[in-house]
């Protein structure tokens, strides 16, 4: 029919209309560029060149903390019997052992290379932070969501929060480390047994704020089940809050571990906190300062980088910045 018309009228093909079958599914399609949330997050995040630098630095530090100790097989007591190896300054250590990257921070009380000790400790501290954050965030966010949604749960949980929040954390940790031996996993257990509570409380407040917003009210009026409201309406809204929270939580576990180790309640593994605690006396001894400031500097760098990356990622995951 089309060819005949073209021949008979002599018009151009653009001016010839033809009937198209109506299709319900086709009419529902939206002719806009596809929006992917996480793609936009990373687009916004990488738009800032500083973020690229800082993120690659963070990845490098974490990779270094895991790969370096695994490659070097750090043994703190390797030089124990060498009386000249103890408390050396970097220059003396390199002179004594020959140049190697592990001597650039000198040596410690039992002749161990401070550089190796620091990175071995960093591995333990970072692992602790990631494991605790993972456990606490999962439990805290899930329970916080339930806590915010249900008024009955809220009544009970508020009382629990008021009571447990008042029990000194140091007491719980010391009782647990006396019950079990003060190992890495005891520390994880101690930090997570009540640690999720404050996260859950924070999430509860956030849920309360947006639970009764108009769009959720509308959803409920239309008969959307609560689970779906929680997953589809509220969770996406909370992503940036959760990422920002994670950014403060991760470094806080490292800091808290340092604090606990300093007051003598740390774990038995030589984490960064234990290194700082053990080297406290070295700080005031001339020539030994690096044994103390080495782990302090590394722990500060790790926590700052973690925090900054997390905060910027949190900013980027706020859909309002995706314009």
């Amino acid at each position: 029919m089309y060819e005949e018309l073209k021949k008979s009228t002599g018009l151009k093909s653009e001016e010839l209309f033809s009937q198209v079958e109506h299709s319900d599914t086709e009419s529902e399609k939206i002719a806009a560029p596809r929006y992917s949330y996480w793609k936009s997050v990373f687009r916004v995040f990488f738009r800032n060149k500083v973020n690229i630098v800082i993120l690659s630095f963070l990845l490098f530090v974490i990779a270094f903390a895991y790969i370096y100790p695994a490659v070097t097989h750090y043994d703190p007591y390797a030089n124990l019997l060498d009386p000249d190896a103890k408390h050396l300054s970097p220059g003396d250590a390199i002179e004594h052992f020959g140049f190697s990257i592990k001597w650039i921070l000198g040596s410690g009380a039992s002749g161990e290379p401070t550089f190796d000790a620091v990175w071995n400790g960093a591995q333990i501290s970072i692992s602790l932070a990631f494991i605790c954050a993972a456990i606490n965030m999962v439990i805290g966010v899930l329970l916080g969501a339930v806590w915010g949604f249900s008024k009955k749960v809220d009544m009970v949980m508020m009382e629990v929060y008021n009571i447990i929040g008042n029990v000194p954390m140091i007491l719980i940790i010391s009782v647990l480390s006396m019950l079990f031996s003060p190992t890495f996993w005891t520390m994880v257990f101690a930090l997570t047994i009540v640690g999720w509570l404050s996260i859950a409380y924070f999430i509860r407040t956030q849920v309360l704020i947006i639970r009764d917003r108009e769009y959720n009210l509308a959803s409920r009026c239309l008969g959307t089940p609560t689970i779906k409201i929680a997953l589809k309406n509220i969770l996406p809204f909370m992503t940036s809050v959760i990422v920002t929270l994670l950014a403060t939580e991760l470094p806080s576990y490292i800091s808290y571990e340092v604090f606990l180790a300093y007051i003598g309640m740390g774990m038995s593994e030589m984490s960064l906190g234990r290194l700082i605690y053990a080297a406290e006396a070295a700080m005031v001894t001339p020539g030994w300062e690096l044994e103390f400031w080495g782990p302090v500097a590394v722990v500060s760098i790790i926590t700052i980088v973690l925090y900054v990356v997390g905060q910027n990622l949190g900013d980027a995951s706020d859909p309002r910045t995706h314009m």
Partner: protein
Amino acid sequence: MAKYILQRIIKGILSAVCVVILIMILVYSLMNRENIFAGDSNYTKTQSNARVTYEQSRYEAFGYVDYVNYSEYIVQLAQNGELDEETRPVAALVGPTPEKDSEIASEYIRRFTEEYEAEGYTVTRLEADRKSNGQVKDGGQATVFAVRERSLPDRVISYFTRMFFIDNIHYVPESTDIGERGLTFTLHDPLYGGDKFSPAIIGNGTKHKYLLYFDNKFPWFHQNLLTLNLGESYTVNRGVDVFETMTASQGTYVLSTVSYPTGHVEESADDLHTATYAEGSLAVSEMYAARFTDDYTNTITVKGSMSKMGYSFVIGIISTIMAYILGLPIGIAMARFKNGFLDKIGTMYIIFIIAVPSLAYIFLFKAIGGSVFKLPTLFDMDSGSRLMFVLPIVSLALPSIANLMKWMRRYMIDQMNSEYVKFARSGGLSETEIFTKHIWRNAVIPIVHGIPASILTAMTGAIITERVYSVPGAGNLLTQAINKYDNGVIVGVALFYALLTVTSIILGDILIASVDPRISFTSKGR
């Protein structure tokens, strides 16, 4: 309003009680009780049966069990007049085996067993522990004792009933003859020679001799009628209450001319107003006999420096004031010139304080303060220099400044985007007017809520700062108690912290309601 606050207070007290119960479960049920002997030299010295009884008496002291030894029972019987002086030594002698008991002793041991088993005690008889040659070992003498495990409800109830002590004339056991019991009110305190006008109430038969008195120490008027008993210390500060450990002055003795009740005048640090009853003390000590006329001989000595809580509070309160004076204006300026130079520097500082472990920056401040500003880095109570306060105060203030800056900036920026600000701007107000008259007053409301908490928690001290600068403050009390397994102190300190938190939240709510007319506690408005 009043009803609401009362409800809150009751709720707060209830949650404090729950905290105490939880902590009692933690320390008494979960912790291994044998830990208390870890650093105990007496325990390693004693052996055989003596070690068993020593263990039990220590468990009693730490609050785990009720323990009665047979010899204590006999002494008590003798005091009550049920035993005469002749039979007493015979009854007190426990034979090496039950068969070898004298008739009188076995009768009394039977009575002891029956009486205490009826009360739920377990009575144990340890037979004489002999060496291979038949001689009784050191500490191996036969003994009989009764032990009862203290249950949690029992422990909680007795803790709270003992917490408030109202002094009364029946404090001294009725069997003791102390002359006429009673309270005397005098307008002329005998301690000042009897001429100076100074009202006081003096008791006989009470725990404290002076129940009400005036002196030259702040707050000049003192009472001993109602005393707070948070928990007795056993290892940290033996026999002294937690509250007193926190509030008693420290340092070197301050001598003044004291005239004792006997007329003896001496340069001494004793504060006679604090005299408490110590049974039989006068008879056993010549020193007391020369100075006192009755058994009220136990006095607190006056020392030159502040108490643990005093040091913590002075440092804490000055740093809190500094934090508010500096943190709020800087936070406002950061919001006012958002993305400006000050904002960028301030944000970097905030990130530094939040992310870096507190230990790291406190040591950094200490190193800088010591080497660049030549400030004293260690606290010395007796030096009298005020410069030693500077570094602890600065170290405590800097993080709270960062915290206040962060929130003030956040709240200001939140308010800056609201409709009423746009309206004010369209109305032609200057930016300064908008900031000082509109935004500031709305943004500061959430900040106000934290003021009582920051003042009250200044009393508990800061663990790391005090340790780094060796400040003799209250911050390390809890860690010290945990390390020494001093259960009484752990419970007392934890309750004190809990009460402070509860009070500061209630005060914060009251304060915020009085600042913000939109917030009301009456449920009608909602």
